[in-house]
């Protein structure tokens, strides 16, 4: 399980990856593993009305990584409710971010991956 950003031949980077670059339409052939580097919190929220199978409250943040000078953002759960804009965070892997056996996708939980990275303030 990686935290992988995609890069196209024109140097545009996105997270998550896409078959074609959202900016120029070229195939994204390169990838960058973001899991070993820190990021900065751009904004955050604490969601109290969560769907079935999701922790409550669910603190979420959009964070910004630096990939060769290009800002690349990602969204994820935060490990704590104590977070502020501008905080430095590091990705921490979690096996299951929400219960795949509950909710609309419980009929086919294998349709996607459920593990991923939370942001832990450094």
């Amino acid at each position, binding site marked *: 399980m990686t935290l992988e950003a995609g890069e196209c031949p024109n140097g545009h980077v996105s997270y998550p990856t896409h078959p074609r670059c959202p900016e120029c339409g070229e195939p994204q052939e390169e990838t960058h593993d973001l899991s070993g580097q820190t990021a900065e919190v751009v*904004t955050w*929220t*604490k969601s*109290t009305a969560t769907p*079935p199978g999701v922790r409550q409250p*669910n603190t979420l943040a*959009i964070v910004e990584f630096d990939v060769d000078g290009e800002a690349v953002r990602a969204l994820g759960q935060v490990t704590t409710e104590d977070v502020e804009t501008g905080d430095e965070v590091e990705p921490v892997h979690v096996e299951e971010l*929400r219960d795949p056996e509950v909710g*609309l996708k419980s009929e086919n939980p294998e349709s996607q991956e459920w593990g*991923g990275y939370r942001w832990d303030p450094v």
Partner: protein
Amino acid sequence: MGVAVIGASMTKFGQRDAWIRELLSQAGEECLDDADVTPKEVEHLYVSNMASGEFEGQTGVMNMLAHDLGVLPAYAERVDQTSSSGGAGIYEAWQSVASGASDMTLLVGGEKMTHKTTGEATDIIASITHPEEYKHGVTLPSFAGLTARHYLERFDAPRESLARVAVKNHKNGVDNPKAQFQKEITMEKALDSPIIADPLRLYDFCPITDGSAAMMFTTEERAKEITDEYAVVSGVAGATDTQVVHERDDPTVMGGVVESSKQAYEMAGLGPDDLDVAELHDMFTILEFLQLEGIGVADQGTAWEMAMDGATEKDGELPINTSGGLKSKGHPLGASGVAQGVEIYEQLVGEAGPRQVEADTALACNVGGFGNCVITTIMEAAE
């Protein structure tokens, strides 16, 4: 070819016992009556609906409605564009008449949602997100919280400005007998309500709603034969933005709003200064600011000042959401964009009752997802 709207209707929005079948047929029948059109005159039928399969196990709603309204053998199609399904229906209906494929097109939008728990309904709506977002439990309200915090911090806007949007739209909704809430709220109530997605609270969000709305489209030539009271669709366009919200260059810019409104203005030969009234997609209070900026009425980072100055009140410089907006009127997904069209039509033909403002040119902006897709419609009163 000029495309006219000659009739409109809307069921009561709110918690209804009726299921999707009855809601759609109620609005459809009332629209036929309002336009004084017989079912057999209808050549195309569009049904805007996001998720009747997921909400109540009912699919094929266009064939159901075509049969129930007796419009057979009209061409029938379901239009799904998530929360902007209604606006997309307006676009489809406009295309059908403008292309010459149909001389009489009925659009009906509807959704039945309140029988699900808030969590279940939230999950159905959140299923539009990318798997990398969905697995984190992100919801549309949480996108609103993330964006609102960024907007308030970056543009130094007071928290009260968002509450003012809620208070205004509730006030407008009092005069709309079809609205889910016909009840004013105070600033204190808005600012003290429970946190849903910090910094946003309960009154920053629209409710979960059942309801349906409909509009009748025909050529301008035929409209003139039928009635003096009609409006013309002078501009309509749709656009998309990234599915993954954090991939946008600027989290406070809704690219779909900017692009669709730009195209709609060009088609109509008009600009933001020409608008007399507008219905914006206030699913969350912060969206009213992002759309005022996206459609060019306010510069980036300044729309909150319009709320604080009262410029968007019913008696202000540019009345926004005279219907009460999604905030107090309710948000039955597939019906909402059509209901926006119903409101601006009624304003343009002088049928808005106590909500009436002076208006010859009106805009409706219907947003799908968190700005994933947007339809902007401009209508003008008949000359």
